[in-house]
């Protein structure tokens, strides 16, 4: 078959990229080889537009065992325990086919974690949908949520935390990011780097079918009016088989038979084999007749490009095949030797005893295109609104309107579709600043959270990037956990557009700056470009997944108020920054202006001291002040606990709205027993921490004198009606 321009274009390759292919392999590729290049050189697999920028992220630290570049990141939490985690996007497939797209997103990220030898212990998700009024939103929301639940519930890993947001920017390109966290012995971690010549390459798991062919290429292009036609590129998940695969792999890993292991995710068999060979600086030879197939008559092209789920590639020690095979047979899974490692440094594909494709590994990996794309800086927007000019609204009305809005509503309609308790180590479920998972049979626990702030990132990417890292850090601290490391999922529009590329570059600068300052390194991540339809790009939406450590699970706290008469103390200063706030957006539809300023040294200082107070058992409950400001944070503490608060009217700020709804950063609310106040004040003043008492815990009512008095029951009802009525 002659390779025509139209075939090249259908494979998502540009003319200059095709010339480069010919130059690298010194011949015209055949269709199979072209398909393989297309799978490896697309944005999703090659990171060709992002690699240059990603290099700047801080990825090392005392507790980092493995940073980005492997299936997932690995951190050391002491006593030979390691935590392995990563977040990944499945945006494009989920928009085309919400249930399967979301389900396989969960399946894929779980494989990344158990491939490395970890038993997964928690799942998280960050999902962004279009405006609730958009005709597609309801079906997408319902499909994605049941897909996430369908996979996690069946395989038996608790889905413990997440965030759900609605904004018209995602009308035609939703975001579905899934994060998995696993636990392993730090001396028994498995990597993907191939080692040794003539070692058997083993295929295990499900059979290969015709689903998901070109999935990664599909995810590397914008949508248009024909996106529906791309449904066959979406993979179909089978969580039951994944459970078998997970148990079989973990059983095999108890022994020393695995040299290296890699899951077949995006770009399937192609990407798995190339990655293993590339990291090991070896060649790899595959006998495609041996690949277990679901249907007869599948072509090598289909086998190499299928993204059928629940499959792994293993390079195995000599003479260990028999024992390994027994384990996979026990779990009723396919086990086939399909190739060997070679010294040719080529990917060699054989079918019916003939070489049908041969490509140097480096042409697919290290020599893949790398672009330093043009990008533009974004200036800090001006503050051009005088709040006194806006139509007056009563504080109570604004509060209730925000609490009943889709983005601030109680999310139990979603979280109740997830099994949060299976494995019975979930010490804090969703609905708090973060979730807590006890390490099985140990005293310690980890805290996990996912966060994003697309509107801040859009307004000023540099500040937005910093803010989400800080938000993640605060959420972990609010439960009494010491923040350790993050993973990131970078969801952006078309990188060929300099404005989008600028958003990417500057968000990363912000993330880098905050991570460095807070000693909160990035250990894994994923980039998702081309989120948009017909040239309309989504707002920049980097999502941060944070992990922290609690030495003793019992020392955890949360944001539920505990006792009448306790004092709420606010840490950090309120300036009343309303630009980019929920208040401006929900009440006045104002979306311009700069995001709140991020002061990293305040963040660090405030956070470290709050953690110290919690560790010294001086804090009854704690909550991070984030979107919606002080008043929403207070309301959340009430609604989850059933206690009320009497909030003092501020003396200083001239405008009550600024005081209540301002989204100034670096703030926490701490519930303190009056007998502990002197001790707390001593520690705060010794560390120069700005603080003020703002409220007292009382029964039944949420109130501010002469402004409002609302029963907690009514507050709860207001916050819980949106999803059930949608």
């Amino acid at each position: 078959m002659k390779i025509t321009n139209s075939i090249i274009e259908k494979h998502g390759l540009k003319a200059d990229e095709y010339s480069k292919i010919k130059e690298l392999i010194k011949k015209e590729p055949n269709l199979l080889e072209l398909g393989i290049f297309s799978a490896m050189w697309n944005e999703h697999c090659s990171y060709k537009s992002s690699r240059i920028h990603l290099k700047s992220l801080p990825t090392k630290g005392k507790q980092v065992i493995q940073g980005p570049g492997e299936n997932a990141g690995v951190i050391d939490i002491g006593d030979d325990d390691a935590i392995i985690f990563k977040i990944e996007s499945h945006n494009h497939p989920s928009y085309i086919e919400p249930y399967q797209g979301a389900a396989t997103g969960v399946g894929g990220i779980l494989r990344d974690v158990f491939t490395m030898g970890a038993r997964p212990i928690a799942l998280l998700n960050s999902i962004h949908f279009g405006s609730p009024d958009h005709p597609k939103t309801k079906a997408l929301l319902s499909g994605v949520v049941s897909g996430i639940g369908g996979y996690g519930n069946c395989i038996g890993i608790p889905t413990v935390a997440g965030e759900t947001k609605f904004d018209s920017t995602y009308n035609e390109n939703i975001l579905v990011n899934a994060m998995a966290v696993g636990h392993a012995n730090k001396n028994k971690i498995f990597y993907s780097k191939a080692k040794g010549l003539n070692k058997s390459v083993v295929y295990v798991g499900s059979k290969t079918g015709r689903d998901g062919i070109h999935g990664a290429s599909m995810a590397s292009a914008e949508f248009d009016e024909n996106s529906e036609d791309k449904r066959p590129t979406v993979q179909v998940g089978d969580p039951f088989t994944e459970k078998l695969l997970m148990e079989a792999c973990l059983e095999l890993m108890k022994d020393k038979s695995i040299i290296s292991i890699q899951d077949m995710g995006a770009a399937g068999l192609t990407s798995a084999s190339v990655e293993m060979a590339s990291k090991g600086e070896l060649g790899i030879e595959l006998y495609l007749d041996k690949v277990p197939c679901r249907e007869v008559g599948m072509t090598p092209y289909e086998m190499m490009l299928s993204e059928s789920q629940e499959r792994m590639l293993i390079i195995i020690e000599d003479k260990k095949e028999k024992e390994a095979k027994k384990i996979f047979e026990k779990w009723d899974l396919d086990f086939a030797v399909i190739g060997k490692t070679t010294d040719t440094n080529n990917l060699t594909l054989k079918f019916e005893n003939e070489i049908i494709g041969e490509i140097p590994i480096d042409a697919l990996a290290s020599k893949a295109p790398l672009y330093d794309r043009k990008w533009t800086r974004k200036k800090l927007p001006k503050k051009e609104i005088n709040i006194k000019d806006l139509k007056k609204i009563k504080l109570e009305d604004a509060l209730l309107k925000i609490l009943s809005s889709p983005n601030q509503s109680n999310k139990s309609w979603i979280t109740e579709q997830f099994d949060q308790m299976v494995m019975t180590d979930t010490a804090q479920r969703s609905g708090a600043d973060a979730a807590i998972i006890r390490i099985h049979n140990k005293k310690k626990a980890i805290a996990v959270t996912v966060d994003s702030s697309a509107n801040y990132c859009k307004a000023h990417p540099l500040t937005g990037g910093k803010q989400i890292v800080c938000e993640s850090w605060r959420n972990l601290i609010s439960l009494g956990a010491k923040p350790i490391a993050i993973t990131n999922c970078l969801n952006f529009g078309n990188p060929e557009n300099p404005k989008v590329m600028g958003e990417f570059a500057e968000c990363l600068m912000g993330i880098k700056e905050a991570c460095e300052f807070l000693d909160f390194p990035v250990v894994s991540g994923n980039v998702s470009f081309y989120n948009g339809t017909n040239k309309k790009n989504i707002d920049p939406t980097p999502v941060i997944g944070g992990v922290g450590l609690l030495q003793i699970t019992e020392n955890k706290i949360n944001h539920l108020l505990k006792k009448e008469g306790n004092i709420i103390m606010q840490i950090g200063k309120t300036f009343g920054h309303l630009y980019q706030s929920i208040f401006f957006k929900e009440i006045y539809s104002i979306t311009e202006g700069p995001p709140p300023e991020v002061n990293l040294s305040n963040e660090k200082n405030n956070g470290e001291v709050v953690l110290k107070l919690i560790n010294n058992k001086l804090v009854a409950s704690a909550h991070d002040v984030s979107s919606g400001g002080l008043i929403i944070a207070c309301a959340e503490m009430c609604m989850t606990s059933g206690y009320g608060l009497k909030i003092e009217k501020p003396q200083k700020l001239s405008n009550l709205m600024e005081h209540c709804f301002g989204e100034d950063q670096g703030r926490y609310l701490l519930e303190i027993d009056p007998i502990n106040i002197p001790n707390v004040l001593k520690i705060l003043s010794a560390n120069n921490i700005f603080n003020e008492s703002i409220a007292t815990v009382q029964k039944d009512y949420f109130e501010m004198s002469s402004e409002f008095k609302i029963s907690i029951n009514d507050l709860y009802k207001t916050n819980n009606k949106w999803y059930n009525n949608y």
Partner: protein
Amino acid sequence: MNSSIIVFPGSNCDRDIAVALKKFQFKNTMVWHKDVTLPKSDLIIVPGGFSYGDYLRSGAIAAKSNILNEVIKKANDGCLVLGICNGFQILTETGLLKGVLLRNKNLKFLGKDVYVKAVNINNKFCNKYKQDQVLRFNIAHNEGNYFTNSDHLKELEDKNLIPFKYCDKKGNINEENNPNGSLNNIAGIFNDKKNILGMMPHPERMVDQTISGDDGINLFTSLLN
């Protein structure tokens, strides 16, 4: 007390229940679904999960597995059998327990804490609870909506074969506090001889105050009584 947990490839609450049994000093054995004999057991547990994936009706394939034949024999000989969640579904599929578990009334998976009332405590599984004690348990299922014919329902009520009913925090049993649509708010049932208990809530998830609560403890200590 000797216990056995039946492990299907898709079981996912097998470890949790084993942890709970160990905590209360049961001598437990995990029994793989391909095994054909059961070790000597005073108690057999069919745990929660997705047995063989449950792509067919939940529990339908598991009910036909080799090991379930053994469980049926032992159950008919009077051995104590506890089926939790998917285990309950499997027991109804074998016919050891009558009735069926339909999809939840809202047609969605439900994972949350609920209150149940211990309405019958004169049996091997509940004797450590107080009559009408309100307990907080966790449920996590897609098909927990218990249904049976009216004669059987009457028999269940008349013969005190219902140990747990869904209720509110104060113990009121009404439709508002029926999470999945079960007839008469049924959360669990016995067979005639009360040696077989099937229940949708997970008692094994409530044995540790640090994690979630401890209202499940008395179910295990009752068995030891």
